[in-house]
C-alpha cells in the first residue's frame, strides 16, 4: 500500500454489533486472519482475585497459561473493529479493490481483555500505560486561554 493513499472509514450509526467482553489482546501473534471457534476453545475464568485493582482472569492458549484483566475503555472513547469495505461484488478479479483502503465499522466494544503470558497483570503493563497518552494528548490539544497564560508564572 502506498503512502498517501487516502483512507476512508465508514462509521455506521446503527445495527452494529457490540463485542464488549469478546475482545482479547493476546501476548502472541496468531498467523491467521480466518474466523475461529474462539468461544468453544478459549475459556477465560475469573479467579476472584484482584491485583493492583485489576480483577484477575486466567485462560490457556496452546498449552500456555495466560493471566489477564478486562478493562473498560476511558470515558468518551470507544473501540472499533474495522474491516475492508465490501463493494458488493465478490469476484477473484476484484482483489485489486482490496487496495482501495476503504474501511467500515464492523463492530464496537467498550471493554477489552488483555492477557500476559505467565505474568500477572499490572498497572505497569505497556498496554495500560498506553492509555496515559489520552490524558497527555488532551492537555496538549486543549486551547490555551489568556487566563491560563496569566496564571502561569515564569521565574526569570
Amino acid at each position, binding site marked *: 500500500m502506498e503512502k498517501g493513499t487516502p483512507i476512508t472509514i465508514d462509521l455506521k450509526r446503527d445495527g452494529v454489533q457490540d463485542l464488549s467482553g469478546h475482545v482479547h489482546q493476546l501476548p502472541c501473534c496468531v498467523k*491467521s486472519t480466518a474466523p475461529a471457534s474462539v468461544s468453544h*476453545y478459549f475459556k477465560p475464568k475469573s479467579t476472584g482475585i484482584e491485583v493492583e485493582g485489576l480483577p484477575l482472569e486466567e485462560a490457556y492458549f496452546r498449552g*500456555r497459561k495466560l493471566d489477564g484483566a478486562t478493562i473498560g475503555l476511558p470515558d468518551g472513547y470507544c473501540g472499533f473493529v474495522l474491516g475492508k469495505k465490501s463493494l458488493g461484488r465478490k469476484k477473484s478479479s476484484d482483489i485489486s479493490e482490496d487496495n482501495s483502503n476503504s474501511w467500515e465499522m464492523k463492530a464496537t466494544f467498550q471493554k477489552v481483555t488483555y492477557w500476559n503470558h505467565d505474568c500477572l497483570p499490572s498497572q505497569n503493563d505497556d498496554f495500560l500505560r*498506553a492509555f496515559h497518552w489520552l490524558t497527555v494528548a488532551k492537555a496538549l490539544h486543549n486551547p490555551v486561554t489568556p487566563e491560563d497564560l496569566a496564571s502561569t508564572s515564569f521565574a526569570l
Partner: protein
Amino acid sequence: MGSDFVLPKWASTPCIMGIDEAGRGPVLGPMVYGCLYCARSYQKTLATLSFADSKTLKEEKREELFDNLKGNESIGWDVDVLDPKELSSKMLKRNKINLNEISHQSAMGLIDRVLKIGVLLTEVYIDTVGDPEKYEVMLSKNFPSIKFVVAKKADSLYPVVSGASIVAKVTRDRALREWVLDETAENMHRNFGSGYPGDPQTKSWLEQHKHHVFGFPSLVRFSWGTCTTYSKDMVEVSWESDKMDEDGGSGGNSGKRQLKLRNVGFTTSKKRSEEIESSGKGRCKFFQARKLEHLTNF
C-alpha cells in the same frame, strides 16, 4: 482426598511410605502421584496383600486391590493429580520447569501433606526420577528426619511402593475415564485410548481433535514431542515472551519427550519483535516506554 480425617493410632508409631507415579509418559490426561503408608510393624502383612507393580496387573485386579486397600484401616494413602493444563503451562513457562522438577515437587508435596496430618514417617521408598543419588540428597535435605530409599523399579521391589503404584494408576485411569473436556466444539468424543503416544486409539483421537488455531483441547500436553507431528496442520503462533529469553534456561536433561520447545512448532524461531508488537522505536521516551507507534497506514 485420601484416607480418613481421624488419625489412626498406628500413625504415631514409626511409619513407612511408598510413592509412585502414573501417567508420566502419556501425551494426554493428568499425571498422578500416589502414596501409601502404614506402620512399620505392618510391613510383613502388607507384603502378603499381593500388591505388585500396577503395570503387571489387569485393570479389574487393580481396581479390586484399590478397593481393598481403601477399606484397610491399617493403611493410609493420598494422591496428587496434576492437570494436563498445569503440566503444559509449567513446561511452557518463561522459566521452563521440566517434568523431573514437577515430579519431584509433587512427591515432596505428598510427603509434606502426610507429615502435616501427623503421621510419623521414618522411611520413604520412592521410584527414582532422574539421578537416584541426587534425588536422595534433595529429599533428605528437605526432610531430614526421614530415611529415603530411592531406587529404580522401586514399584516392583517394595510392596509399599507397589501399593502406591496401584493408588496412582487407578486414580489416573478413573480421572481419564471420567474426564470432562473444557472445550465445547461439536464432534468431540472421549475415546482417548491409553494416552500413550504409540496407542493407535490415542493417535486417531489426536488426529480428530487437532485444531488449526487452538492446537488441541487442553486435555493434551502441548509440551510433548508427540505434538510436533501435528504442527504442520496448525497456524504459526509467535510469543512475545519467547523473544525475551534467548534460551529459556531450563534444567536440560529431562527425558526424550521434552524436546526443545522451539522444535515443536508451538513456539517459533525468533522473530524480530517489531513484527509481533509495536515497539515505539525511534520515538521519544514517553512513547517508547509505552510501545506506542505512529501509524500512518493500516
